[in-house]
């Protein structure tokens, strides 16, 4: 009899349980299941207050639902270290005995029920006092236990779904990050423009990380510059520079504190509101830094964030470096183009063919240097009986030098037919060029006029390397008479004229300092002494042969050292 009554009571209990089980098993939402579990237990036990929590990370529990007490508790996550795995009557615990119990006692909870699925603690249910202050009997406790067990598979299923959703979301995020990197790598190299790269970089920082305080610092010739910034305070650049040299991986400022060498920089950055520092590296060399403030949507930078930022930073700096190299290459090309123009001007000034006079052999050579030095020579046959020869060297290099030389040539060509004396003409050329020159440019210039029938050679030397006159008898003279270099100042002191009569077998050798100052591999000049010595040895050769010999001696001497100045020679041999 007694047993059938018990059966009846049991089936009366079972029917609602069946309903309950149906409801929770049709849901995949963990919060709904736990909330329903709490309400069901509260209804069965006639309790008006209860809390249900779910463990999120080890030791951290999220309050899924709180009934009959402050609603704002819901959604909070609290730490609870190793709560009991058995149903526990909280009043029976000694005060302070279990630290985790404090939270529940504070909210006047009486019974704590662990939710254990497959031996794993999933959450906790805490219940307040029953109506009428009834105790939780052992039968009550086992009924609660059964309800929890009944919910086990539904909870497990819902947890798995939650985990899957988490995994899905983090995969979505990774996919999004990869997309961003792909998007940027396509765009960064368009137009090779460093400013564009910086703008896209900052947009992506703002968008991907959700940060609105940042600075991008770039290294430039050993110092560091802020290339783009949106910080509320000025960052100390010494700290940034120090980090730039030492920091090899992306770091949180809070981590930098732990390393002694970064401590002062960390303090500096912290005060500027910077939370993370990302080095921008090209082949392991840090060329810049990205400084980032806190994330606007809250939370710390995760390892994944830092890795993503690091990839993005490196992608950006490679493009910035490429843009710089590209700009340099363009600049170099521009300079080379300019030099080509200078070379054209200079070559255009030189006579294409030299006049042929039966009594003299006139030969010349001009080997321009890469930078184009501004050397010039000229041979003008003014009449059957007169030949003018000239050689000059403009200070400086490139287009300005060649333009100035063009000026000198024009003056010379315009003035020689006027029948003025050599010193007078020289004075006029000087006056013209000194008006046209700027910033201390000048020209060393030697020129002379050869009277063919008498072999009288009259000349003016305006500061040029003294030409050699090698006599057939073996003596050597230098042609020094003249005046100051051209282009420095208007003529104050008249130029003087030198004069000499050439004999058969004599040889005039005009040259520029590109010859005497040609440099050996050891950095030593060729010198006029060496030139003189070799000239004495070869004075009987033809003008052509003399030029060839000296040229080949120069080649031997310099041993492939790059030629830094134009080499020019003009040789007149009396036949």
């Amino acid at each position, binding site marked *: 009899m007694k047993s059938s009554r018990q059966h009846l009571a049991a089936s009366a209990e079972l029917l609602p349980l069946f309903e309950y089980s149906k409801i929770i098993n049709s849901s995949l939402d963990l919060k709904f299941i736990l909330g329903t579990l709490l309400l069901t237990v509260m209804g069965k036990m006639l309790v008006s207050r209860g809390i249900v929590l779910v463990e999120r990370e080890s030791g951290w529990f999220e309050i899924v639902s709180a009934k009959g007490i402050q609603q704002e508790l819901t959604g909070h996550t609290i730490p609870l270290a190793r709560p009991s795995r058995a149903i526990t009557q909280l009043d029976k615990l000694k005060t302070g005995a279990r630290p985790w119990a404090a939270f529940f006692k504070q909210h006047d909870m009486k019974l704590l029920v662990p939710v254990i699925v497959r031996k794993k603690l999933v959450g906790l249910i805490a219940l307040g006092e029953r109506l009428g202050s009834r105790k939780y009997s052992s039968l009550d406790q086992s009924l609660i236990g059964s309800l929890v067990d009944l919910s086990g598979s539904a909870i497990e299923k819902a947890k798995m779904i939650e985990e899957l959703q988490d995994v899905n979301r983090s995969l979505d995020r990774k996919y999004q990050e990869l997309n*961003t990197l792909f*998007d*940027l790598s396509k*765009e960064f190299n*368009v137009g090779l423009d460093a400013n564009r790269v910086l703008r*896209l970089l900052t*947009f992506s920082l*703002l*968008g*991907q990380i959700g940060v609105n305080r940042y600075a991008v610092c770039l290294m430039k010739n050993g110092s560091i510059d802020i290339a783009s910034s949106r910080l509320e305070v000025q960052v100390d650049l010494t700290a940034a520079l120090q980090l730039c040299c030492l920091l090899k991986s992306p770091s949180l400022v809070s981590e930098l504190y732990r390393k002694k060498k970064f401590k002062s920089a960390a303090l500096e950055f912290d005060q500027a509101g910077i939370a993370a520092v990302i080095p921008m590296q090209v082949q392991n060399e840090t060329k810049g830094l990205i400084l980032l403030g806190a994330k606007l949507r809250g939370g710390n930078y995760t390892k994944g964030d830092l890795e993503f930022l690091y990839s993005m930073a490196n992608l950006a700096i490679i493009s910035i470096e490429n843009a710089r190299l590209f700009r340099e290459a363009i600049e170099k090309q521009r300079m080379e183009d300019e030099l080509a123009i200078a070379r054209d001007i200079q070559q255009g000034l030189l006579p294409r063919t030299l006049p042929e006079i039966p009594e003299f052999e006139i030969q010349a050579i001009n080997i321009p240097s890469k930078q184009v030095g501004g050397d010039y020579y000229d041979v003008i046959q003014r009449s059957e009986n007169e030949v003018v020869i000239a050689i000059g060297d403009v200070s400086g290099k490139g287009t300005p030098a060649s333009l100035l030389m063009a000026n000198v040539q024009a003056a010379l060509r315009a003035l020689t037919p006027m029948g003025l004396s050599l010193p007078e003409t020289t004075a006029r050329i000087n006056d013209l060029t000194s008006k046209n020159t700027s910033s201390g440019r000048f020209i060393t210039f030697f020129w002379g006029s050869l009277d063919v029938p008498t072999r009288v050679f009259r000349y003016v030397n305006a500061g040029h390397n003294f030409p050699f006159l090698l006599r057939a008898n073996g003596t050597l003279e230098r042609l020094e008479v003249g005046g100051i270099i051209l282009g420095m100042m208007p003529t104050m002191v008249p130029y003087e004229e030198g004069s000499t009569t050439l004999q058969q077998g004599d040889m005039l050798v005009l040259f520029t300092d590109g010859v005497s100052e040609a440099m050996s591999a050891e950095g030593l000049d060729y010198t006029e002494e060496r030139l003189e010595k070799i000239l004495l040895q070869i004075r009987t050769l033809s003008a052509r042969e003399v030029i060839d010999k000296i040229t080949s001696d120069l080649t031997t001497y310099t041993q492939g050292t790059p030629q830094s100045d134009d080499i020019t020679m003009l040789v007149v041999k009396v036949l």
Partner: protein
Amino acid sequence: MSDFKIHHREGEGVNVIELKGYLDAHTAPELETTFQKLLNDKKFNIVVNCKDLTYISSAGLGVFMAYIEDVRKNQGDIKLSNMTAKVYNVFDLLGFPILYEIYKEEKEAIVRFTQPKKS
């Protein structure tokens, strides 16, 4: 190149920006120009209608971030509306729903400028 278009409409005190196509690193500067122009013209009440926006990259989102501060400083706002699920997913992934007001319909967003949300 990618297809992206911006259409600007001006209603009563509210500027509606319609975005169409791909908003990525390549096209982000166009949206930047649009926002910059609105700011220069002191137009701070902005609704961005994303009905025809097919894709948004983080550089695109960055443009919203770059201007929101200045706009809000001037008592304005950038509100978003009519997002497709795909575009919303990107906003959601990067945590934008807590930083921006996002509405289903453009008119709901416009109304919010005259009847601010109770908070």
